[in-house]
């Protein structure tokens, strides 16, 4: 579990460092992972779709 956590934390850090990548998507992915739910293709798509909509609104 320790390594899983390390991998995810590093993954989120790298995405956050990418200025072009929307923070809202990273936050949502992080929140979803921390909730312990299964990360599925559909869920990630939903997060991306919502993130893109938010960016467009901004």
């Amino acid at each position, binding site marked *: *579990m*320790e*390594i*899983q956590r*390390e*991998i995810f934390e*590093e*993954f989120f850090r*790298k*995405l956050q460092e*990418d200025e072009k*990548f*929307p923070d809202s*998507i990273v936050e949502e*992915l992080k929140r979803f992972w921390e909730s312990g739910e*299964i*990360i*599925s*293709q559909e869920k*990630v*798509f939903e997060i*991306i*779709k919502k*993130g*893109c909509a938010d960016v467009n609104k901004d």
Partner: protein
Amino acid sequence: MSIKIKKINIHAFRGILDLELELEGKSLLLRGENGTGKSSIVEAIEFFFTGKVSHLEGVQGLSLRRHAPHVNFAPDDINVSITFDPGNIFLTRTFTSAPSSSAPLEDYFKITQKGTFILRRSQILEFIRSQPAERFRAIGSIVGIQSLDNVELEMMRLRDELEGKVASKEKEINRLISDLSNLIGKEITEIKDVLPALNETLQKANLPLIMSLEEVDKHAQEMMRAVRKAESIERIAVLNEILKITNIPLISQEIVTELDDINEKVKYLLQDRARVELSIAGLLETGRKFIEEEKMNVCPLCEQEINRERLLIRIDDRLRILQALSDKASEIRKISVGVIDNLKGISNKLSSAISKIELFDELSKEKEMLLDKFRILNVFIDKVTSAKDFKNEIPIQEFIQQKEETNNIRLSISTKCNSLLSTIGLSEDEKKVLEVIRLIEQARSKVKDISNVSSELKAYKKRYELAEKIYSTFSETKKAKIQEVYNTIQEDMQNFYSMLHPNEPHKNIELVVALGRRASTEMRIESFGRKGEDPRALTSEGHLDSLGLCVFLAFVKKFNEGCPLIVLDDVVTTIDAGHRENICKLLFEKFGEKQLIITTHDGIWYEQLRASQRAYGVEGNFKNFVIIGWNVDTGPIVRPYKARWERIQEKTAAGDKSGAGNEARQYLEWILETICEALQIPVPFKSSGRYEVRELLMPAKKRVDSLIKENTFKAEISKTFQNLDSTMIMGNLLSHNNILVENVSIEEVKGFCDSVRKLHNIFLCPECGHFVSYYRDLKIIRCSNPKCKKPLEVKTD
């Protein structure tokens, strides 16, 4: 003080009816012949901690519910309990309830629940001999990262899906632009070319020009008013809209070609041959290696003559096909996205046409027919979607027939619409105006479609970029972190392996995350000066098995820190006696603090482990048990181990001449085998590996005579051999229930047994009781216990 297992109780599980193993926190060494329930005990421990039995999982026809209970019991009868110390904590697993671990056992259970404290030979195969992906999975379960593999797979699928969407939208835009060019009769490359081209047409028809495409609707209505009276305008507009939909084929040949292409790929993957090839990849690779390296011209399986070169080429072809299979699956997923979108677009067109033609009684027959085609098309879309997941083929012929029929209905509708327009009574000029109106409306509609699809494309491109970024970042992070983990255990792996194979030219053992593959681990070794080789290329079966053991122990050392339990289930079958000694050393020196459970069917390995317990002074830490029998009603009959000499003494005391004689003869066989191994005495090869006394005695005598220089030791051995010669007849008479046994006295039997015992003692170090070994380089026979303070040492030639 670490938590240890005090007692194990098993009821109605696998081959066990009722069994209690009192370990008292000690390690367990258990010997039993094949089929006596050793593995049932290991499986019961696995079941207790994990609720699973790994070899019953994922195999068709096997299930925990049906095959975990003893044959005379039901799942609810199963009960496996373990008592832990300190604290005398008693926990139970049944088929429906799991043990609830309390605070002191939290770490212990966290690790054991993963099941990664057990090593079986099948796992060694996974570590060493399997494909990189299987190796990754095997290691992933120890490291605790197996679920990440699924996360990565989901991310990759999303990326593929979105990539397919982008390609599909780009294709749709190209198709719409091509339709637009055909409609206007002029090459259109950009949207801005459309307005001038339409105005050119309007000008030719002497109609007012339009300033923008947004004005088209208003413009068309005004022109329509000029054509007819108000009551006809709506009817003409709807007929125009229907004609707009039906003036080109509803289902194009292009989509049939695309479906056919996908179907060919799907069909290939659905073939039994493709499935079989996937499952026999490992066999093909092993077979290829064998045939190539052994230069064999005869099939090792059927013993028929083979054309080696041709066979190797065919195997290579099949391996290439196999590699291409996963690429094909990914390609199918991507291209299907666009085709399914197109089919849905056709379905929408049909739906739109139906809603419009129902306003005309004259088209009621066509409406019913089109409705039927609409339903059939939607069923077909479901079939294409399931074909994308390789559940079925695409019924292409059926679709082609539907395409023809749908397009015929389309023609019929188009003809009737034109006829209806004629009945409204339009003049030739009005007809021309109508045609122009229809043209600009259709052009406007296409432009609108292009604009919509372009927006969708933009959105999908953005989503694809984000999905790709998520996938590649996750994948790279995962690979880098796993490689870091591998790097941290590399040193232990190498050290352990060097302990097992000292002075051998194998070094720099590496586990490497394979780049460019999603979940894959390669194993490399530097061997005989060749760097980065696959260990399978350069080492023996025994070396590979010991390497697997080292990989397991290195991971256990790093990741199972909070749990002292290690189970080794019959794992050294291919490793020779000398290297097994080194395994004892590795286990007792590096894992002495752990609670080991070691099972074996191999008497020699069992004796080596017992001797090593003495040599390392850990006898008190072990419970040595033997399974003396098994049947379905009793399960394994487990007894504390007794040395063979103790058993012989019991039998002679009881007057059991035949029993004592047989034990002594087997004892002698074992001693002679051990002497031959220890002194490196060449004996003729026997494929069974079973030798009789006469086959070993002479070579042993000759070797001792030629090898040993020191006279006292040599004389003592010679005298022992002479004693043995004089009593050997007893051994022969007493074997196999010989009827002459009655003619032999118990004193004579004791004499034979004593000679055997004497022979054993002479090769044991008087200081520590360890067997001697021959060290060729040093030209000595010496106690093999490296920790012996006063080792026996005899010079040799």
